[in-house]
């Protein structure tokens, strides 16, 4: 009689085993008190944590904005820039977010006074807009979104970013995500 592995048990608890494997596994669990105790522990570990607000950004490369991360010479040092092409002539805001592994944070804008429009940014030789960034050590992920003003943050609301998140979720905001790697400090 072969033992039930932890992997089999977890798969079963997730409902990810095939139906033709389930009856027997249920019986095996029922006849082994040690497995029943293990099930309780695993169920607790599988329970989802309390929900946190989402930034519904697309997976890397699957957004609809032509955005790239490029290395740039800045004096004697190497800098980085986020370079994008505004999709149309509509009035838009520039929202930049980054994720260093602990979730998305807004870099700009942080309040009603520092809103940027694409035309406020410098252009490179190909007419693309350029945002100079300082990378943290290691891997980080960056997102640039260009909401229309009515999709951008509502600074008068108790949760200013709710409107922006909803527009992102609905796929109405040109946005793109790129991974970048900064040099690791010795």
């Amino acid at each position: 009689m072969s033992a039930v592995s932890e992997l089999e048990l977890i798969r079963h608890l997730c409902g990810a085993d095939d139906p033709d494997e389930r009856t027997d596994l249920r019986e095996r669990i029922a006849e082994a008190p040690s497995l029943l105790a293990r099930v309780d522990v695993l169920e607790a570990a599988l329970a989802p944590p309390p929900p946190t607000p989402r930034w519904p950004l697309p997976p890397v490369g699957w957004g609809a904005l032509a955005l790239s991360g490029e290395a740039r010479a800045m004096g004697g040092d190497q800098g980085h820039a986020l370079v994008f092409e505004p999709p149309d002539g509509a009035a838009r805001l520039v929202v930049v977010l980054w994720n260093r592994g602990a979730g998305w944070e807004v870099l700009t804008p942080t309040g009603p006074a520092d809103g940027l429009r694409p035309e406020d940014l410098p252009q490179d030789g190909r007419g693309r807009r350029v945002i100079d960034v300082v990378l943290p050590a290691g891997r980080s992920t960056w997102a640039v979104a260009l909401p229309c003003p009515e999709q951008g943050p509502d600074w008068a609301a108790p949760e200013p970013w709710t409107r922006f998140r909803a527009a992102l979720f609905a796929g109405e905001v040109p946005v793109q995500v790129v991974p970048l790697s900064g040099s690791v400090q010795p």
Partner: protein
Amino acid sequence: MRLTWDEYLSLRRDRLAAAGASVQCLPGWSCETVAGLEAVRPGAAGWAVVCAPGQSLPRRRDRATAARHDAWLHARAEGPPAPETPELRARWARARLVALGERLSEEGHRSWTEGWREQPSEDAHAAAVLAGLGSRSWTVRAEAEALLLPPVLRSFRGVCLARRLPAAVRERAVGELREAVFYRLCLPDGAGRPGWTELAARTLETAGPVSALLGPLGEDQRRRAASCAASRGRWGETARALFGPRSRALRARALLDELDRWEVHLNTHLQLRLRARWAAGETDPDGDWRQLVQSRARARARLRALAGERAEALLEAVLALPALAARLRDAASRWAWAWAWEELARDFSFDLGRPVLAPCVQDDLIPPPWPAAWEAPLDSWLLLVLLRGRLDHLRRWAETGSTGDRDSTWGRLLAEALPAPLSAEGHGRLQDELRQSLSRRLSALRPVVVAVAQLQPGRGLKSAVLRILEESWSPWLPLPRAGFPSMQRAARALLPTLPAEEAP
């Protein structure tokens, strides 16, 4: 159903009785029982589980399913070594097949197809989500996530937990997954197929884990399914066992002709796999069931890959299922489990260009039908082979690829007389065609051979033979110029062996 020990012992006796019955198909199996079961080597424990008298066995107090009783007994039973007689070994194997047949109809089929609870409002919701995904509508995102995110996230958490990933890594992966799910479902991957087709194929499995997946297949997918089965892994052996030692292409064609009996052939495949396992002395009942489940899972995965190519047909089939929400959520758990392992291998990069299920890259091995324009050249050449007395050479060559000798007449027939169209693609296709149609063609040629055999020998023989041949001779090969007496001798010698003319 849980049985008392006495009920279980009674079931064992019934199994043995069923194993001894003279039937083509054992209970629970849709295929004829495979031959060669006397090759199994059950061992003492395996033998005791099936055949030892009830009073000689340890006794279990708890109720349990028959399968759990089997496994319990296998872990404890001791008995004399299994008998060496082939008949008893075969009977042991048949009794094990009866036991597994009980599980096949119950766990192997009903567990997939029954017990899905209808929830009219949620089912309508699920149908709207699938239809929306089918038309790449972004408006169903909230509904799709409400329905599918919980099972998908749980499967990802499960894989992270199984691999003991730190909580921070787990939550990062799950956070990125949450945003990736809809993109994966809605947008096409690198092979051009959106993820919802994989999910829909897994949902369709709940209508009959194997047979339902055949429904959406088009002709191209059916041909590749048959080609795949004739070629891949252990299925190649099964195809040989089912359709004999013909070429792979012919076995594939035979499988294609019987593709709607896939479940039956799958059962034969399962029995052959079990026979091989038992012949290696592996008789643990849990391992037997695992073997069945895995073999069926592989067969389903191949069919899912093909069904996924037929998005519209797949969607139509899935939308017709009752209790759609329950089936879809269940399928999402299984689909996401497979996806999570793929992502784990790539550090949760969520490269949505890669499909979760590898697409089917099987070539279509089945040749197209023999062209009508090649009929006359082939029949003329066959007639020449017959009149040169080389039918046996032809048969050996068609079956094995060689005549086994260095006969110069046969060599000339093949190298010089074979019409160009028949050798343009090499000899393989011609050999396949002869394996399939030689008997029919010989029947059709019989009147010509009879006519030649019945001619008067002598000076007029050549012109008489040519008159007969010219009636249907193909311009692709020259008429014979010499050797007419020996042709007549060959025709006379052939008559008793040629098949009779088939009724039109």
